[in-house]
């Protein structure tokens, strides 16, 4: 087996994004610069009653696709932007690596309801065939005729971070020459209801790291990065947006849904990323935090950042703009992180009126901050205590 060569640098040569604050990098970045969140009344599930009624829905006209779920179509839309930016890549050696938590569960739910009403013989099966979590990778690969393989990562909310890290490894071990790596998740009833029954949804737009935070705001969207070996990207004259200089992955081994309160797993993931990138903690200029807005995450993540990086590094939660996009969050926030590096501007945490006492860091409240950003971390954690931290460097 070839060992992934850590001296092989990984270039980001394309990025695409769709979420509640925009249908492209340009729209998303404009909203970030203008401190404009995309959180509003939930409209998706007409006739359903939930304890909370806000969400970060992606208002977007999706491409048509036979047998494709909303999650699949969001993925295709984001991948299109990323691939168009990357330009001429070897399609037959391009692997698709996607993280998704729910896949086409939204369509699966339609089928479950139909079965309950009409019985299994009369319910049309076409919707439930869109449910598998392999759908987004398969859909992207099919849409763009990519022949380098498909991998789907369903590691709850850490899915897309893991998918991006995995893709970098396969470039370093030369199992592929290009990777379209990202994540996608559409809102569905099960997750909207599920986080509510866990009492993890804030009835107001989420306020990560705030004293009065009550939980997450559920969002949806998709994002992809095009990754290549640095030398290949240079050789073909591609514009390099940023470098993915390392990642770390860990598990809390603590609880099925709650993070370890001491933040040990998150700390290990950040340390792993620094180790792979050959950096000292002091070299990290900014952390795009997981920052969900739950009492447990924000406190544990803050402890982890302090333990891994100290108290001087600013950290912010982009989820204050577009909510928690679950399995897609690692990719959506990776794209935001790349945009931050390109623009030398750190996105803020919106609505942080009063920071919590257990959250003593600089969370960049309210407005974006111009900063010299060379090395930045993007954190993604999930149910089951799975943690991924991606390390990006300015190109």
């Amino acid at each position, binding site marked *: *087996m*070839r*060992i992934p060569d*850590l001296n092989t640098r990984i270039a980001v040569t394309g990025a695409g994004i769709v979420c509640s604050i925009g249908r492209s990098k340009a729209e998303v970045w404009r909203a970030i610069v203008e401190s404009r969140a995309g959180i509003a009344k939930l409209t998706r599930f007409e006739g359903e*009653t*939930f304890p909370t009624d806000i969400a970060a829905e992606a208002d977007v006209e999706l491409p048509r696709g036979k047998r494709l779920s909303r999650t699949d179509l969001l993925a295709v839309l984001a991948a299109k932007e990323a691939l168009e930016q990357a330009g001429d890549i070897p399609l*037959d050696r391009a692997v698709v690596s996607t993280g998704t*938590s729910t*896949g086409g*569960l939204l369509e699966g739910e339609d089928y*479950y*309801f139909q079965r*309950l009403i009409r019985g*299994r013989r009369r319910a049309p*099966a076409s919707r*439930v*065939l869109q449910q*598998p979590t*392999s*759908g987004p*990778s*398969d*859909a992207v*690969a*099919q849409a763009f*005729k*990519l*022949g*380098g*393989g*498909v*991998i*789907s*990562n*369903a*590691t709850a909310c850490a899915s897309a971070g*893991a998918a991006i890290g*995995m893709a970098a490894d*396969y470039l370093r071990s030369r*199992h592929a020459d290009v990777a379209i790596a990202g994540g996608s998740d559409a809102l569905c*009833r*099960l997750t*909207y*209801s*599920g*986080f*509510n*029954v866990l009492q993890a949804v804030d009835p107001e737009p989420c306020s990560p790291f705030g004293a009065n935070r009550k939980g997450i705001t559920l969002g949806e969207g998709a994002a992809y990065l095009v990754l290549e070996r640095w030398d290949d990207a240079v050789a073909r004259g591609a514009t390099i947006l940023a470098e993915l200089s390392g990642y770390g*992955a860990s*598990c*809390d*081994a603590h609880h*099925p849904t709650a993070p370890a309160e001491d933040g040990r*797993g998150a700390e*290990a993931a950040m340390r*792993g990323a620094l180790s792979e990138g050959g950096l000292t903690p002091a070299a990290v200029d900014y952390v795009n935090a997981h920052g969900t807005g739950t009492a447990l995450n924000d406190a544990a993540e803050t402890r982890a950042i302090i333990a891994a990086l100290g108290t001087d590094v600013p950290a912010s939660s982009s989820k204050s703009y577009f909510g928690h996009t679950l399995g897609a969050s690692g990719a959506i926030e990776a794209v935001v992180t790349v945009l931050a590096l390109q623009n030398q501007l750190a996105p803020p945490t919106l609505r942080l009126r009063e920071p919590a006492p257990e959250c003593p860091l600089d969370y960049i409240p309210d407005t974006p901050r111009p900063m010299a950003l060379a090395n930045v971390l993007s954190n993604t954690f999930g*149910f*089951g*205590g*799975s943690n991924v931290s991606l390390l990006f460097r300015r190109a």
Partner: protein
Amino acid sequence: MRIPITGIGVIAPGAIGIEAFRALLASGQSAVADVDRFDTTGLSAHQAALVLDFKPKEFIPVMKMRRMNALSRLGVAAAKLAIADCGGSLLPETGVAIGTAFGPVQTSVEYMQEYVEKGAALAPPQLFAESVANAPGSHIAIEWGLRGFNVTITQRESSALAAAMYAATQLAKGTVRAALIGGVEEANEMLFSVLDRIGALAHNGTPGMILGEGGAVLVAGAGTRKPYGWLAGFGIARDTTAPISDWGHDEKSVVTAMQAALDDAEVTEVDAIFVSANGAPRGDEVEARAIQARFGDAVPLVPTKQVFGEYAAGGALQIAAALVALDEGRYRNVLVNSISAGGGIVCAVLSREAA
């Protein structure tokens, strides 16, 4: 670099534990039988390879078991058997990579039933916690305190082999000292009836696949037992002619993945191929043409899915079967193929030798 597999735990159709699994494979018999777990009246297919004699209480304390869905129980029980089999213990720096084709479909169904009956605010949180595909991997990490990477791969028929590829890559990189690699799958009424509805299941002489299930976990990089075999190389590709949920017809893509696995393992030939073939005509045909193109008629083909079905332990039973054959000295190097509906292909070379 090659990755030793020193422990195997299986909760398989017709076999609990590696020795029973070995005996099942040696017997030439099949675990496929008429389904009586759920009602197949009105469906075309009536057979599956089901795990019938698994008693989770024998593996998991009752209080913990109550918090686990069927997939998590299969995964934790298989991990317990695998760790016992490897003759050692695991350090905290151990990763977990689990494959599952369809994941917690049954848990989602049960959740949505409660949602309909009780309302969106009153469905059980416990079911929601288990509705994520990575719940089995999480329970395994919690049970043995494993703090390395923890990922769950859901790439249809290739899920477990793709999980093995990732874990082996991490061991090669040195980010963990050891890893548990495996897969889980549950054959439930929902999955069976939908596959039946689209004509994917074999019935009345019509070719198709047999649905399997189970849990299997392999111990990589830890333990004292003589290795069953080594993970020696992997190859991935995709058949760009494949529709979104069926197999394509481009055998060259399969050859590409097989050759990539051989190259990664630094071998030029293998002694047997543990084929992907599962009875689905299009998938079987594209693989047969690819094998013919690359190997001719020279290499023995070892089908396994007539024994324990497709998706058995997320595909991990196919890997376990290949490792048992290496352990018994029947082959030096084998190729394991998995070709997925949707076009994904993952191939691996497993070897009896460390280098």
